[in-house]
């Protein structure tokens, strides 16, 4: 179990302090798909980076399987919104990065990287340079890079935020499939209500000023959700309304 205990984060600029996250407590169950949903500036990405150890919390703790985390955790892997593939490396070499960090010897590294690429259907471009791939393919490499280290928790930071709608929906289905198959814990940051509803077991709603968690809701929609028109499901529509109201999307529009 992944426990987030009273985590706060304050950013200090020269003459002002910004409360990015205030007192967030949350438990993520093993094998659960949990989304952090909210508008930009609500601290959801900051929280994800704190979970991974990329950013230090001002106060609070992250506990994984009973052990308090210090620094970057080896049980977790991160998928970045900007993907950040290393342009001087081939696709498969990019996927090997995490294995290098874990000291896996070269032959095993290559084998596991190719396996991870196969999971996302990209083994055929293993030796291509990243810039020859489309944005959607590049992000699949980003996912493969994270899966290659066989993480217990997959942290995804708006991974499809820069992609067009068609590619995004394709990749949502692909992530849902991968999750059903690999049964790992996923913490997924998004500002897209439909994306969160399609993928998640539970959704943590975040609000701004200061960034904080406002509500945790369970999504009880039948899985697999790509096999039927989930968006037409009455429960889906009801939950969407609840979320929109809670995030005050409509109110904002009227201003």
């Amino acid at each position, binding site marked *: 179990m992944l426990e987030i205990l009273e985590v706060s984060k304050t950013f200090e600029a020269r003459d002002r302090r910004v409360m990015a996250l205030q007192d967030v407590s949350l438990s993520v169950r093993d094998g659960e798909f949990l989304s952090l949903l909210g508008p930009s500036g609500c601290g959801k990405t900051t929280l994800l980076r704190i979970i991974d150890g*990329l950013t230090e919390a001002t106060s609070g703790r992250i506990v994984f399987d009973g052990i308090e985390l210090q620094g*970057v955790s080896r049980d977790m892997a*991160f998928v*970045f919104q900007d993907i950040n593939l*290393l342009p*001087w490396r081939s696709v498969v070499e990019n996927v090997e*990065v995490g294995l*290098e960090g874990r000291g896996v010897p070269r032959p095993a590294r290559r084998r596991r990287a190719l396996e991870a690429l196969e999971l996302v259907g990209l083994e055929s471009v293993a030796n291509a*340079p990243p*810039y020859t791939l489309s944005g959607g393919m590049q992000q699949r490499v980003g996912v493969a890079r994270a899966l290659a280290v066989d993480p217990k928790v997959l942290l995804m930071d708006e991974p499809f935020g820069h992609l067009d709608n068609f590619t995004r929906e394709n990749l949502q289905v692909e992530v849902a499939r991968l999750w059903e198959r690999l049964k790992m814990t996923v913490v997924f940051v998004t500002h897209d209500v439909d994306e969160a509803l399609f993928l998640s077991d539970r959704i943590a709603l975040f609000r701004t000023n200061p960034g904080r968690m406002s509500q945790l809701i369970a999504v009880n929609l039948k899985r697999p959700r790509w096999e039927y028109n989930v968006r037409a499901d009455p429960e889906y529509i009801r939950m969407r309304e609840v979320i929109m109201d809670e995030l005050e999307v409509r109110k904002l529009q009227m201003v």
Partner: protein
Amino acid sequence: MSVAEVGRRRATEWAARSLQWLRTTALPPLLLVIVILGAWQASGLFLDPLLISTPTSVLTELASMSTQGQIWLALLTSLEEMFIGLSIGLVCGIVLGLLMGRYWIVETILSPYVNFFNATPLVVTIPLLVIWVGISTQARLLFVVLITIWPVLLNTLAGVKNVSQGYIDVGRAFGLSEAQMLREISIPAAVPYILAGVRVSVGLAIIGMIISEIEVSMVGLGFLLTSFGNSFQTGKLFAVILVTSVLGVLSAAIVRLVEKRWFRWIGELSASQR
């Protein structure tokens, strides 16, 4: 479509592209070159050849110096000195730049000296170099090293310190050690900066080579320039100038070739991202 047809179509497309390139890119500058050369040649009819010579006599002189081997011998001497000096300068510059970028203490200690030397017109050190190591090849080498080290050093330093935060995040998130971070992230990410520094240093190496051959001891291309100048052999002087220009153009082309061959991603990066 058959293979032959595809081949034929490719050939015609290539021919059309080449023709287009000739018309738009190659022809206009070529025309100007012809006009200038023509004017230069014509000026020989009423100006003293001692002043500006003519293109034809420059070529004749170049041919005769080439067959006599004089120009080759000078070129070889100069190239050797330039190559060794530049190599030492580049290696020292890159290593020092990396160390300074990596360890703040090294940067704090060395940056005043780097700024001092970089700001000094280094020609002034030549008499000192001669006092230290004598009128010798070593003095000339040392001068080339001294003049080429700074641009590549400063660029390497800037490159290592300006690695994109996204790449650093990847290294950290995936658990790379400090040594791996330097080897796998910082150095490759700094390569575009380093190559830009190399380009400047290569240009300076040629300048350093010629200056030291004139100022330290009379050998190589620098010697030819001085002696032809002093004896008013303008045609030969122009021929040597031409050789040094070609040398400059070729060196720059080699750096570009290295970049295209081994660092193709640099060009692709600027083309696709931002």
